[in-house]
């Protein structure tokens, strides 16, 4: 089966039934749809019934200027090799998205991770708030754009102090001349003695 026909198949499948805000064909094996927040569950159910049985990843993007988070669900079909990205935007104020746990049980850990790094709540997943990666985190979620990692690092971890007085031996004149001579010699030897 040709891979472009797979792309056509999935776009007709999705576009006939759902209102797609934005469609992008990333490559012949990957296609992205942006849909409304309420339609994600129905779309994922449809794709799962059509053979996109594996949830490869769930991530989030922080669009701080639009004051929105974008959630990205990536699903994979093993019969028709196309990754489908389902993107949806949710508000940045008190972000919350219904869990897709009944559709893809494997999303349990992805939702915990997104909650930990972006602070998105997933009602429907009983343990989305449990810590997964960061142990005992005490600040705002670290992958949000308004989090300053350098300030956090400066506040928590000791920095090595260096004295400013040092000598840069590399720019000394005598060595420079020597090094250029050596380079010339290397080039001469490499060319067999010819200039």
């Amino acid at each position, binding site marked *: 089966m040709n891979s472009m026909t797979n792309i056509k198949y999935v776009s007709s499948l999705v576009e006939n039934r759902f209102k797609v805000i934005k469609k992008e064909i990333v490559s012949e094996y990957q296609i992205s749809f942006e849909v409304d927040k309420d339609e994600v569950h129905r779309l994922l159910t449809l794709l799962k019934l059509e053979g996109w049985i594996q949830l490869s990843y769930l991530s989030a993007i922080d669009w701080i200027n639009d004051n929105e988070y974008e959630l990205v669900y990536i699903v994979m079909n093993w019969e028709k090799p196309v990754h489908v990205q389902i993107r949806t935007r949710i508000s940045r104020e008190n972000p919350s998205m219904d869990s897709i746990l009944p559709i893809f049980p494997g999303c349990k850990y992805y939702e915990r991770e997104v909650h930990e790094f972006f602070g998105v709540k997933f009602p429907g997943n009983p343990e989305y708030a449990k810590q997964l990666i*960061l*142990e005992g985190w005490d600040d705002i979620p670290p992958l949000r754009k308004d989090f300053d990692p350098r300030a956090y690092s400066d506040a928590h*971890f000791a920095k090595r102090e260096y004295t400013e007085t040092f000598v840069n031996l590399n720019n000394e004149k005598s060595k420079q001349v020597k090094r250029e001579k050596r380079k010339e010699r290397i080039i001469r030897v490499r060319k067999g003695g010819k200039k």
Partner: protein
Amino acid sequence: MESTKFSLLTKEEVDRKWWEIGDFFRRNSLWMLMYCTGCCAIELPPAMTSAYDMERLGMGPMATPRQADVLLVTGYLSLKTLRRLIYTYEQMSEPKYVVGIGSCTINGGIYHDSHAVINQLDQYIPVDVYVAGCMPNTEAVMNGFVDLMRLIKSKKANGWKKYHKNNEWYKKNQIDSLGEVRVKDEFHD
């Protein structure tokens, strides 16, 4: 006339002699515990196998912290890894030495402004030898081990004594950065 050659040794002198003999054995048979946290760990296979052959110096890899003498910290340490590293370090039997490989253990390296990676290893556990570089050559790594042997010979590799002496300072630093040293996750509760 009293002989100057043969006089009874005091207890300190006897202890010192025994310690020197022990140092001879210890520096010629360093068993490593490789805490391969980061990318510098890739320099260890060439150092161990036929290219540089670490075994001719008497060094070899060991499976558990109890058996090992040298703790190799190869690369960056995230907060989670640091907790486990402190556990591991405290399990090792004394005398024990620590070698920090790569610039991440010295000043954070390219992760100096990350929220998850510590910057200076010697704030948390004592380090005897640093091998600088991002990443260091295998020659530099080998040179670091030879330096460690020289330090043991000249009795300067006493990081483990420092850990006993300044234990409160180290503990304070650990708690300041980590909050709590105890490992708390799904598998330890």
